[in-house]
């Protein structure tokens, strides 16, 4: 299991993040570890750097971690979380520029086949809105 790239799903809404992670587990399977987080520390809509950091570490894989985000702050806070990682992990975490739900399914399908982090991200990003 740990020889596959893992995923982290970051949404402003904890429900969206959980739902997207559920879709990955049901549609793709459990060969790929998926963590999800969402919501600001005060419980309102938003994202939280510490929660993202915890999520990355929860599913850490030596093959790397691909992060799927929804809007604005999810992206900047994820970038901040990556910067807070130990240096040896930092280079093995990437943000995918793709729709959060669709990108997660595509990324997980790619990762389930043992693909590299670069290939997982490329597959998620291949699905950019037309």
């Amino acid at each position, binding site marked *: 299991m740990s020889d596959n790239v893992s995923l982290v799903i970051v949404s402003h809404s904890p429900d969206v993040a959980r739902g997207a992670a559920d879709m990955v587990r049901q*549609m*793709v*399977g459990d060969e790929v570890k998926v963590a999800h987080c969402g919501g600001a520390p005060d419980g309102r809509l938003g994202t939280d750097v510490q929660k993202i950091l915890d999520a990355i570490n929860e599913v850490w894989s030596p093959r790397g971690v691909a992060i799927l985000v929804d809007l604005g702050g999810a992206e900047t806070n994820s970038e901040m979380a990556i910067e807070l990682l130990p240096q040896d992990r930092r280079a093995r975490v990437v943000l995918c520029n793709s729709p959060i739900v669709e990108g997660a*399914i*595509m990324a997980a*399908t*790619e990762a*389930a*086949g*043992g*693909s590299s982090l670069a290939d997982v991200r490329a*597959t998620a990003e*291949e*699905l950019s809105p037309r």
Partner: protein
Amino acid sequence: MSAYSDSAPVPLSRATANVVLRHEAGLHARPAVKLTKLAKKFAAKIALATSEGGPWIDAKSIVKVMAAKAPRDTLLHFRAEGADASAAVEALVALVEQDFPDDG
């Protein structure tokens, strides 16, 4: 030129097959994921087309397989190239014939 260069290369194995897609909703999200995941288990290059003249798409690309949007009753064409080509085509046809069963 070298004395060793005339050793026979391993013959490249090729396989093709067609199968009718009976799945009610066609090749939608979940069947596409299953097909791609199965294709990725083989080393062979595997292509898929929804008509004999192509276009042929990479069966290991989830984005392309899903984008094919093959509806029910499409005749799916598979072709594979590589040492395990026959096994790959056989497994993919079985998956479609068995209507994309859940693993295990």
